[in-house]
């Protein structure tokens, strides 16, 4: 029986998601307003608001934002972009491959928007120097960012949310999703070379000129503060190392400091906040300048989403949907198939963050209601679909919006449908490969 609370919760949820897609009202405002209405009508009581908000996700994002903001002040990313450009030796295909690799690896550890914001100007510059059409390079950068983000726990917000909800470790993510990301990226690059290879050619004599022009760039000019640059690299290495051992850090610390319990663990959010604290203390950068750059709108967006989904949980909507699904889905394989493809296609329409927020409690409920379905592989199917679904359309992920927005400002036209044609192809190929690999693993 559908109650009035259920109808209100579903109505507010759908209206808010429509507003998030449309973005006529800022998505953070839409999410907070929807959450506010749910609290106001008592569907999510004020006392339980904090229970619904996943602070693991919010603090992990906040910590990484602080680290990235301090690191970007040093010129680290521009340095990386120039080194990558030089390594290509003026070859258009090598530019495509190297920039895709650097984008993917950087996106795997840092947020996708910062990665593409900092690499796109260099990519546009090189395309101009090479006198080649920049479109394949920009689209490849988007795809690489979304695929690379899938590889680690901290690479993409859906992964952070999934890891926090399912208590998955950094290494579990790395060993499960990174091989899929590597294979998918290789396949996508081959596809791009086959599709766009003809327009990515320059004469050998021109290639020498391009190399000379690029070689004139001095990566050391990009480094604004050498000490900060070194400290940023050191902090990033420490943070990545801590992520590798966060789930069994006690075993290592116990050897050096016997009074520490060997079963001690660190949450990923703790690692990010330790890294943020370390870089702020070490660099002596004015914290107010860094805190100003934290994307508070994104954090409030997450907060609002968690409350919105909390409304569906409180009214039993999530349980009803999971029971409905369980009428038709009986095995883990079937559930993986549905979760992966549904999340991929839906992520291409809705932003993958609100989609993941809604699917996480659904998977938890499937686990609670079914004795035959193992939900562990379903988390990976969700990560696969949510991250790779971002390649489907121009609005499916933040990296897409940023790169296409920049290209529009630079007078390079990539229409929604131009992107859709290659985006859907990449989506179907990469999800199919990824799902196949997940079937082999589980």
């Amino acid at each position, binding site marked *: 029986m559908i109650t009035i609370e259920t109808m209100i919760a579903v109505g507010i949820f759908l209206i808010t998601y429509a507003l998030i897609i449309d973005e006529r009202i800022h998505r953070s405002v839409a999410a907070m307003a929807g959450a506010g209405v749910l609290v106001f009508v008592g569907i999510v009581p004020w006392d339980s608001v904090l229970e619904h908000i996943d602070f693991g996700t919010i603090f992990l994002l906040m910590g990484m934002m602080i680290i990235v903001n301090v690191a970007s002040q040093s010129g680290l990313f521009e340095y990386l972009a120039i080194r990558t450009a030089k390594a290509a030796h003026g070859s258009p295909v090598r530019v495509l491959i190297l920039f895709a690799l650097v984008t993917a690896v950087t996106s795997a550890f840092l947020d996708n928007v910062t990665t593409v914001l900092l690499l796109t*100007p260099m990519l546009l*510059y090189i395309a101009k120097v090479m006198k080649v059409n920049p479109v394949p390079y920009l689209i490849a950068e988007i795809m690489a960012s979304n695929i690379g983000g899938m590889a680690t726990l901290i690479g993409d917000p859906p992964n952070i949310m999934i890891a926090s909800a399912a208590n998955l470790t950094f290494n579990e993510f790395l060993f499960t999703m990174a091989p899929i990301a590597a294979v998918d990226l290789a396949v996508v690059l081959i596809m791009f070379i086959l599709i766009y290879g003809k327009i990515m050619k320059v004469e050998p004599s021109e290639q020498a000129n391009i190399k000379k022009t690029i070689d004139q760039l001095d990566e050391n000019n990009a480094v604004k503060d050498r000490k900060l640059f070194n400290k940023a690299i050191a902090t990033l290495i420490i943070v990545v190392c801590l992520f590798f051992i966060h789930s069994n850090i006690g075993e290592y610390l116990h050897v050096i400091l016997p009074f520490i319990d060997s079963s001690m663990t660190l949450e990923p959010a703790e690692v990010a906040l330790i890294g943020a604290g370390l870089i702020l203390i070490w660099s002596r950068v004015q914290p107010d300048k860094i805190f100003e750059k934290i994307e508070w709108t994104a954090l409030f967006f997450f907060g609002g989403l968690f409350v919105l989904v909390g409304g569906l949980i409180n009214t039993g909507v999530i349980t009803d949907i999971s029971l409905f699904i369980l009428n038709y889905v009986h095995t883990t394989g079937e559930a993986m198939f549905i979760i992966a493809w549904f999340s991929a296609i839906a992520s291409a329409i809705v932003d993958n963050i609100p989609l993941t927020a809604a699917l996480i409690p659904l998977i938890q409920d499937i686990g609670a209601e079914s004795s035959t379905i193992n939900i562990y592989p379903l988390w990976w199917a969700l990560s696969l679909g949510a991250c790779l679904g971002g390649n489907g359309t121009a*609005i499916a992920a933040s990296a897409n919006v940023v790169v296409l*927005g920049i290209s529009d*400002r630079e007078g390079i036209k990539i229409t*929604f449908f131009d992107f859709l044609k290659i985006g859907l192809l990449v989506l179907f190929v990469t999800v199919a490969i990824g799902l196949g690999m997940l079937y082999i693993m589980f």
Partner: protein
Amino acid sequence: MGYLSSLLNRKYRGYGEDRYAGIQKEYADFLIAEDEEVREIRTVLFPLDYFVRSVPDEVYSLLKLYKAEITLIYVTDSDIAGQIKDTLGECAMNSFLENRESYGRELLDKISHELSERDLKAAARMITGDISQTVENIAKDYDLIAVSKSYGGGRCRGNEMSPLSQRLVHNMKTAALIY
């Protein structure tokens, strides 16, 4: 279509438009703008005429850095030859051309020798024609043109460059070295 592009714009404004403006400024500090690019000089055109008497050492030193192919051309002014023919007859014109070409050969030999002393090789050509148009046409195929301030004649006090060398520098897209 209109809705989708405005949707994309709205989303971009929310995600990173302001940040990108800041990043662009930072990149502008170390990316070389198109007009700042140092173009490679592989071919140099060296136009000479009756009014060019010598080439300073500094020019040779600079040319040595480029390691470029140098082409010397001596242009005899066909307009003046035509005027002499009209006023003094064909014989006088032929004598004029003979004198100028003889001077031209000597000048080309002298400059070729000075270049070879500095391990620079140059091809030399004698041309009779419009001293401005001929150079402008040929210079299109070269990366640099080295023009004397005296080229074409007409230098005077208060006018450091001859009208013709000024015209060449002003009209041509090829990079120019003035000496």
